[in-house]
């Protein structure tokens, strides 16, 4: 687990960046550093992506390094498998997490298995990146949070940053990583937060959670945009004298179980927050691991706060009754403290 404070100090220059800018910066550095890195997908080239994360990169690095492709997720992911076989490190973009399903077969059956199936002859060190998450009133499927489909798929890593600093460092780590990584970029966080980010190359290790708040009473485990949501509730709780250990997992696979157990052993009370639907969401796996490895530390039932078990609806005026909000997390904190 890395505390926010433990950030590299070797970097002299930093710049205030949004997460979007930090990601652009990371992709730019990766293209510069490793000529095996190529980027492609729908609209990533000329336009720089619908969220403009690859803006300017084609102009700078050329069409051979970053380019637009036919509109097919199974094609984008399937060809990336082949590109790996001739030595590339494709960093492909899907336009939204909700369109990953059209390429999910290639992820489950091939990206995840190619190395195992060929016993090391063929690797798939690609990164599949996409915007995901709710809160912007876009169209249906533009708000899905499909991480649990991936955590159940062996052989891949799943990264979901919550800050500009982490986004850049995790992206560079993901591109370096020899295993395939699916990289979630929260659409609400792209431009809502800014922080100081080193301008140079650095990595944040995959598999290490970040402690956002330190406290003794309740552990909140979360990732992505829900870190902000939980933070709001946690700060209010802290003002009311409740100590919150807020863990931002940063990567849900590999999972930093040590960090989770350490915190749970201290607080004995756990709230898990995620944007995806409740049932069989990744929160279930976390709760199961706690019930296996730290059962007797628990002083209260584990509470999960998650989207209802429906599609992430496009009923803009009322979605906040379903998607986790700070008030829902506050209710969960109350609940976990009341037993």
């Amino acid at each position, binding site marked *: 687990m890395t505390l926010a404070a433990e950030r590299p100090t070797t970097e002299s220059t930093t710049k205030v960046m949004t997460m979007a800018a930090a990601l652009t910066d990371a992709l730019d550095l990766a293209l510069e550093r490793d000529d095996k890195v190529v980027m492609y997908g729908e609209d990533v080239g*000329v336009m720089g992506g619908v969220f403009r994360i690859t803006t300017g990169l084609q102009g700078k690095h050329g069409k051979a390094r970053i380019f637009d492709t036919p*509109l097919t997720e199974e094609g984008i992911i399937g060809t990336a498998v082949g590109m790996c076989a001739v030595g590339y490190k494709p960093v492909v973009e899907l336009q939204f997490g909700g369109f990953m399903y059209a390429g999910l077969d290639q992820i489950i059956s091939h990206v995840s298995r190619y190395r195992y199936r060929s016993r090391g002859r063929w690797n798939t060190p690609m990164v599949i990146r996409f915007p995901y998450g709710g809160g912007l009133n876009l169209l249906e499927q533009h708000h899905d949070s499909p991480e649990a489909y991936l955590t159940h798929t062996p052989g891949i890593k799943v990264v979901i940053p919550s800050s500009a600093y982490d986004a850049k460092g995790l992206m560079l780590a993901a591109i370096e990583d020899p295993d395939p990584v699916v990289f979630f970029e929260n659409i609400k966080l792209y431009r809502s937060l800014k922080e100081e980010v080193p301008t140079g190359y650095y990595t944040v290790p995959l598999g290490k959670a970040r402690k956002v708040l330190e406290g003794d009473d309740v552990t909140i485990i979360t990732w992505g945009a829900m870190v902000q949501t939980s933070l709001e509730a946690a700060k209010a709780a802290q003002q009311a004298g409740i100590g919150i250990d807020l863990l931002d997992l940063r990567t849900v696979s590999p999972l930093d179980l040590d960090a989770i157990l350490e915190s749970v052993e201290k607080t004995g009370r756990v709230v898990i927050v995620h944007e995806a639907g409740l049932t069989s969401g990744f929160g279930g796996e976390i709760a199961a691991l706690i019930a296996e490895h730290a059962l007797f530390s628990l002083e209260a039932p584990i509470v999960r706060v998650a989207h209802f078990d429906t599609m992430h609806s496009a009923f803009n005026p009322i979605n906040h009754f379903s998607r986790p909000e700070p008030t829902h997390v506050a209710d969960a904190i109350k609940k976990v403290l009341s037993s």
Partner: protein
Amino acid sequence: MPELYAPEMFQILAPDGTVNKPELVPDMETVEKLYRQMVRVRFFDDRLASLAKQNKMGTYALFGGQEASQVGSAMALKPGDYIAPMYRSTGACIAFGWEPRLAIMYWRGHPEGWRIPDHLNMLPIIIDIGAQFPHAAGVAMGLKMQGKPNVAMSWIGEGGTSQGDFHAGVNWAAATDSPAVFIIENNGWAISVPRAVQSKVDYLMRRADGYGIPGYLVDGNDVLAVHHIASKAVEDARAGKGASLIEQMTYRIRPHTTGDDPKAYRTEDEANDYITNKAPIDRVRKFMTDQKVWDEDREAALKLEVETEFAASLEAADNAPTPDPRALLEYAMVNPAPHLLRQREILEQRIKAVEHA
């Protein structure tokens, strides 16, 4: 290998309003119907574009410029037929009978806009590109099995033709000789990606040969041509001759959605050229005027009519009751499972908390 034949782009009405194939011009009543519908749906699109600028819409996929393509095809259908629309098919949906009031509410994310009326054989609008084609194939196969004289029609963008579902759907309907009409609305762009990136082939309707079904290349800005070919495909389907694939060459003059800025990928000249030289509405008006069945008075009356209708639709949409949050858990299942019942309780608590706040 023998040479490929060169498909000709089917056109009845040239951009300047002159007629290429006089023998194929339908009766003037039909022409006027098509014209009125184009004006009506285009006005809808214009108004939604400006409502969006005032932040009074959610994200909306504009179809302006494609009104001939959408109206001409949808109006080839009859009661009992089905449509499987995509996000850009709002014009086709309205021409098919979707109330503008509901369309406005749909694009605002109001649950009552999402409720598809019982009488309307319109499948849900599909956002994930391509999926609508297997649905249409399934509807068509079912209609055939029931011996009904009806058809399923679906639309896809030229970008969408690269998807696996495009192939699975067209091939299925072809293989099962099902009454489906698949329409490629080739508007030149898939957001920022030009047509040429999608495929090496010159015309996507060439794929029809590979499925063993008729393929048509049509001037998608000529509502008479679109309507003629769509009607032929529909009638063939009704007559048990199976599926067809139509490519309608058109253009999206607007941003991809209300959130897009086309300056990032194309010149304004391109859109202006279209508006000046290929505008689907203008050419029919010119033709009708030449034929002396249309004049400025009629045009003014039509304008008033569509304005009035839209104003009433908008007012009704604006006045729709604030949605009940309980809609979030309705229709999740017919017989809700226990976990959904537990979530209903949580929802009730949240509703109560807000009411008491």
